[in-house]
């Protein structure tokens, strides 16, 4: 794994921007599955979601990044599971009744994503989605499709292809602190 970590890929290659499956500006609107990590609500394009089920035993795979929890048996298929909290550099949290694995199809493969709680399916039209604010050169907002607004609340809409394409931990604290006030003010 050391080689993976060694490659300091802070930025996703520009080519990937146009990659199929990576939905970009223009057609961002549509149905989103929203879920929680702590108190923050995130959204995933519903078309990327294959299924959702409760937490199940995960077999750890040695020598993989920490945020890869391991592999599970999905009806005879072996698929990897990623803890989104760890991927986003948040503290690990004990499992609860509400912990879920969302199976997404991205980057041409299936991957389980562990989240704290699945919320709802929302229709967010393009008009209610704003570009992720830019924080200058050293801050990467490529992993967001945009910021969605619904009922005055803010949802961070993830570009899951990009999230999975990088092998690094993503710290989105800055974003979380910076956005809500800003977007909330505009929504008001």
């Amino acid at each position, binding site marked *: *794994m*050391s080689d*993976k*970590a060694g*490659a*300091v*890929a*802070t930025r996703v290659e520009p080519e990937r921007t146009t990659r199929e499956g990576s939905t970009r500006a223009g057609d961002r609107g549509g149905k989103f599955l929203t879920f929680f990590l702590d108190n923050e609500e995130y959204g995933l394009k519903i078309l990327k979601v294959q299924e959702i089920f409760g937490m199940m*035993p995960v*077999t*750890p*795979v*040695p*020598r*993989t*990044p*920490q*945020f*890869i929890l*391991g*592999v*599970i*048996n999905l*009806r*005879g*298929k*072996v*698929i*990897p599971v990623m803890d989104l909290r760890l991927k986003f*550099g948040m503290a690990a949290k004990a499992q609860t009744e509400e912990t879920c694995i969302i199976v997404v199809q991205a*980057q*041409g*493969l*299936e*991957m389980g994503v562990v989240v704290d709680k699945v919320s709802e399916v929302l229709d967010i039209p393009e008009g209610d989605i704003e570009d992720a604010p830019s924080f200058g050169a*050293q*801050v*990467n*907002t490529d*992993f967001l499709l945009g910021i969605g607004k619904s009922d005055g609340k803010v949802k961070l809409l993830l570009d899951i292809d990009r999230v*999975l394409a*990088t*092998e*690094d*931990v*993503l*710290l*989105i604290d*800055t*974003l979380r602190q910076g956005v809500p006030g800003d977007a909330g003010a505009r929504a008001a």
Partner: protein
Amino acid sequence: MQDSLEFTELLRAIAEDLRSLAPEDQDRLDDLGDALRDAVVIAPEEVLGLAQLLILVRSALQAPESTPEEVRVRLIEASAAALEMALQALSQPGSAAASQQVEAAAQTLEAALRSIYGSEEEESDQERPFDLLPADQDPELMGEFITECREYIQGAEAALLSLEQDPQDTEAINTVFRAFHTIKGTAAFVGVTPVSELAHHAESLLSRIRDGEVHFGGGYADLSLRAADGLKDLFQMLEDALAGQPQTKPDYFDGLLRTLAQPEAYGISGDAGSPEAGASLLADIAGGQDAPRREEEERGAADAAPEQGGRGPRRLASAEPAGEASVRVRTERLDRLIDTVGELVIAHSMVDQDKTVVAGRHFDLQRKVTHLGKIVRELQGLSMSMRMVPLKATFQKMQRLVRDLAHKSGKQVQLITEGEETEIDKNMVDVITDPLVHMIRNAVDHGIEPPDVRAQKGKPRTGTLRLRAYHAEGNVMVQIADDGKGLDRARILEKAVAKGLLESDAGVSDSELLSLIFVPGFSTAEQVTAVSGRGVGMDVVRRNVDAIGGHIDVASRPDQGSTFTLRLPLTLAVTDGMLVNVGGERYIIPTVNIYMTIRPQRYAVSTVAGRGEMVMLRGELLPLVRLHRLFGVEGAVEDPTEGLLVIVDDDARRRCALLVDALLGQQQVVAKPLSEGIGKVQGVAGAAILGDGRVGLILDTAGTAALAKQAPVPVEQEAGQLVRV
């Protein structure tokens, strides 16, 4: 019969359309072209030359736009006339007479075309662009076409070889003929002109053989096989073209077509006495690909010329069982089915072991669950058997290989195959083909002596190669035995000492010494030839065989020959594994990789230089690898004397000991790749679903041992690089 009626109807409609056709009406011409294409497909096979005629008509109608109108009119007239002749022929009873008439019609049309185009035809023939893929191709259809045709070619090749043994074998010639005929028809249908042309020309040669006009043998046999090769090349190119790689016409293509059309003009005859001219021409044709090979081929042909007697392979049982009815299914679907059945087995065992069923007094329920279990197991067996294919096709390829190799090296070799009905996992067939080819090459190139040398030794001039497959000890065994000179023990020893692998042969058993030939870079061939002797090969063989959990043995006696025995698992899908636990984790270690398991005495474990741990086993010091440290598992047994040591090979084939907590039992598991999302993890060969539905990791023992060498200090799980968003 139904088809034949339908065909006649279609043909009649086309002929009528043709009569009322205006030459400038391009749309209708195109429609007619399509109709003709359909007709080619349903053309009754009994009437020979019919498809050929239709293709001819179609190409006549597809005159380029620049063609002057009066020429077009003449073309249409000629085509209509030909079709009417064909219709008349069809109305006659008896296919033989009809065939003759149809052929006459084709000849008339051809003559008409020649007179219309004059000599230009010849020239334009040369410069026609080589369009492998039609413009409007359908990739899926094309894929199926390629698969299907490959099967036909394979059948045709086998039949050609058996025909060479017995030129009177009418069944064989019919098989070949049908194969080329079908390929031609289908190729014309999907619009792959080069294939249909080549098949067409090969078919005309074969029809002459079938009609007894020429005698099959010598140059004709080589030419027919060459045509089959040409088709195989084309299919490969088609596949590449589908993948988007541009293709150019093979150099030999035009030459091959011309030769097939008029073999005699190029000095080819069925006369076995003087095949030199033909052989050199064929070498010429083949020469486009590989110049050095050409020389060799010529020399080989010349050497073989004086004695034609025993060359070529011979099969023990030439009577072939009739093909069983079958359905073509996508492998992908089959794999899904097998996966799903695997799931079913697991789900069943979960029900079976459920407290309610096991402990309760629900005897009725128990009985039902047991009954269900029987059905599930039967289903599992069935689904596994679907992936099994007989080795026959693989063995047939070897027949061809031996024939060509013998030709090239000027030796006389007969290949006897046995047990070709032995079944093996389909995925495994691909893996073992390369090793087999290597070993057979070696046997022909190095093992079997030239005829004169054999005669001096008092052996028959023709060498015998036996390829045998059979079941033993729950494995499939494939054996290749030659009656050649055997492996040169002294030379192997000399080489081993020179390479520093051995100091002397003291205490080295024969089989240990002989297995040195599998070491990379070890070749005792006296000279490097195009076929073998470069020291790559045998190590590749062993690597391939190891990769599928097989084993290879060699035995050899001077002047009596060598025998290579491959022991292969029945299927790749199921791995025999030992389930071990380390802390809270369970791992599967493939049983084939385990030499033994021991619980060491305290005095046997020692530390070297304060770092590496070693364990003494029967006077040998083995490095001790703590799996729990390597894999970062907590709560595992730390004291080797309380745990178990599993002795395995490392990547350099030296033994090492893996420390685990306990053995949980032996289990057959279905090996699956560790998902792409994780990629390759060193030390882990794959994953399998265990009895309780959880995933267990299958250890790659060599990789694990190698890992331990790289990282003597425990490896913590690494967090990735931090990225600020």
